């Protein structure tokens, strides 16, 4: 209660000072419309709507923010958008049904979940050459490259596992059983933990990765579940996951619960549930980590959450059935 009062006071103070967030450009994929909505973070106005191949879901920026990769599941392709011109300039032949992707820190290699083929495709970004394919469990989805680029973790939704790929040999080196329908995986910056959200299991598994050289020994050590008075357990479905800048907080869109959970990553406790639009899927922090933007799949909008006050400040209309969010600093072409 005290904390909430403080938060309210903070909110008032914040509005009075009205510090503008750093200018940024927000990209939102619209699964139904086959488009990417581009939003100016200062005005929160749509500056462009980019047409893509069919069913765009996962979107990810290159490390230098010059390119945006869009996984178009029904187009069986990845559209590459030049973030300066905001045009689709080339495509990557991803293989069937790409859903989520991860790019290594150098921007050389992209790891693609081919949902329909139970494969992770490893591709050279410049040439589009396939460097390897790794068979994983059924319906791979979540993809993340470790901070040191050594491993890629892929979740398989139907098999309920996190698969660990050694990026040098492009081979599977670990498989960790988690709760039902794992959607996303994220490493902590210190490389000590891998967090995995399980949508249907309704939990987040924290996997101890401190034995960094031996992914076969990585084990789930803690499980975080959710509870909101008045909501049924099956509505609490963690999907996306985003750490803040120092990994002290994790923001988790909870799907049918219409909320974003905020977790203290040290205590593993849920600090707050922020009410947003309906069926939030994925979100992203702004470049200065002062705002969190989450795409609401059923209400066709993007909710802006203030990170300090944990208040939903504004809702911005986007296309139909928004799914993924990516954010780059500055304005297009800057």
């Amino acid at each position, binding site marked *: 209660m005290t904390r909430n009062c403080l938060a309210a006071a903070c909110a008032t103070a914040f509005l009075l000072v009205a510090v503008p967030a750093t200018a940024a450009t927000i990209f939102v994929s619209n699964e139904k419309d086959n488009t990417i909505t581009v939003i100016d973070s200062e005005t929160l106005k749509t500056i462009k709507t980019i047409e893509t191949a069919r069913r765009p879901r996962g979107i990810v920026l290159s490390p230098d923010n010059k390119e945006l990769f869009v996984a178009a599941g029904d187009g069986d392709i990845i559209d590459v958008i030049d973030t300066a011109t905001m045009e689709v300039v080339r495509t990557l032949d991803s293989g*069937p049904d790409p859903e989520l992707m991860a790019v290594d820190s150098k921007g050389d290699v992209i790891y693609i979940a081919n949902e329909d083929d139970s494969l992770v495709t490893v591709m050279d970004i410049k040439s589009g050459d396939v460097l390897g394919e790794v068979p994983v469990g059924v319906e791979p989805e979540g993809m993340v490259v470790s901070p040191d680029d050594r491993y890629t973790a892929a979740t398989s939704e139907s*098999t309920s596992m996190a698969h660990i790929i050694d990026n040098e040999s492009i081979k599977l080196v670990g498989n960790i*059983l988690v709760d039902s329908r794992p959607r996303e995986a994220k490493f902590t910056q210190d490389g000590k933990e891998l967090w995995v959200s399980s949508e249907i299991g309704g939990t987040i598994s924290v996997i101890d990765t401190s034995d960094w050289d031996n992914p076969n020994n990585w084990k789930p050590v803690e499980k975080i579940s959710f509870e909101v008075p008045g909501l049924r357990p099956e509505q609490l479905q963690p999907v996306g996951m985003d750490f803040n800048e120092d990994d002290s907080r994790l923001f988790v869109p909870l799907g049918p619960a219409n909320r974003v959970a905020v977790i203290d990553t040290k205590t593993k406790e849920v600090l707050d549930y922020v009410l947003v639009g309906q069926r939030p899927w994925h979100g992203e922090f702004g470049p200065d980590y002062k705002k969190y933007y989450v795409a609401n799949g059923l209400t066709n909008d993007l909710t802006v959450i203030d990170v300090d006050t944990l208040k939903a400040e504004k809702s911005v209309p986007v296309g139909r059935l928004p799914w993924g969010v990516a954010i780059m600093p500055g304005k297009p072409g800057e």
Partner: protein
Amino acid sequence: MSIGIGTVSAETKTPPAAAAPAKADTDGAKAAAPAGDKKTMRLFYLGKKYDEPLPLSYAEEVVTDKGIQGAGLMLKEANQAGNFIGYAFEMDEGIVPKDGDVVAKAKEALAAGNRFILADLEPDDLLAVADLPEAKDAVIMNIRSSATKLRQEECRANIFHVIPDFAMRADALAQYLIWKKWPKWYVLRRDTPEDQDYAAMIKRSAARYGGKVVEDQVYRLPPGARNLDSGHQQVQQQIPLETESAPDHDVVWVVNSDDDFGDYLMYRTSRPRPVVGTQGLQATAWDKSYTESGAMHFQNAIPRLANRKPVERDYTAWLAFRALADSAMKSGKTSPKAVKKYMLSDDFKLEAFKGQALSFRDWDQQMRQPVVLGGGTRVPVSTSPQEGFLHQTNLTDTLGFDKPETKCKLK
């Protein structure tokens, strides 16, 4: 026919477009799996080639391998998962001819040590198998029969029901009709045991949710051939006559398990009324146009194995196998007793493209699950339970027999 790991015969039908995994580096997967000491779970698919009526609509494909293809898919997927963490799954298949002795086949399978049975059987055969002394410790998964007695008076401790029963189907449609404010239902049906069962459940749903069966009418005209040279004219004349004397109603609820007249009703009834039931808008565990919550995976995977679209029984067979495989891998045990215990525990949360975890009701061992409303429509219309139908523990328990009304005494 015996199906071992990765040797599903239908796999040879894989279309070229899906050949991508062949070039994949499978060494990686092998390297990651513990060698040698795999835990093995063996399943038996027990069925009988019952006569099934031809669909009235020529547009409906005649499917002769319902169910087994879904089980074959899960065999592949369970091994794909098990391979990573040291489990193996095997499935044998025993489908007897329509005049064959399925109980003898069951005895044979049980004598060979099988305890996990996917039962593609009608109620009498299912009970005969379940009541064999040697089946006492078996785990039998009902993937075929919607008969309510199997969940009520005739329930058995060794049978788990994966397919929704008629009570769940009637409730799923009833909730939607009440939500639409279409509470007056004209029931038009045949009089087979299935139809009687379903019709009784519609009346039960009406009483539960404030609907009203304005009349329960048995359709008079006998079934006949489905493709007719003489054309549609007679039917066009007959259906208005058959429906004009009905009291005022909002929908026609057709109950026609044999599928010999239901599809004739749409656009032909005396009054302009939608048709729901066994034709028209149906309550089903699977619909061939359902794409939500990852369902595209199943929609794409079955055609690769079977060269046809999935039907409901493919889904229930896949789901039954999945329930067993998931329980084995998550509990770490493959004994029938341990698997059964896990399936009835709170830890059992099965993902199966319905947007929420599926589990079993402990009072009658019926799988609780959302039910898709589609079937006779080109796109799914909805999924029940509907908004506003509340339950103190599980919203899905608003569909079918809830604990207070169960007549099941599991022994």
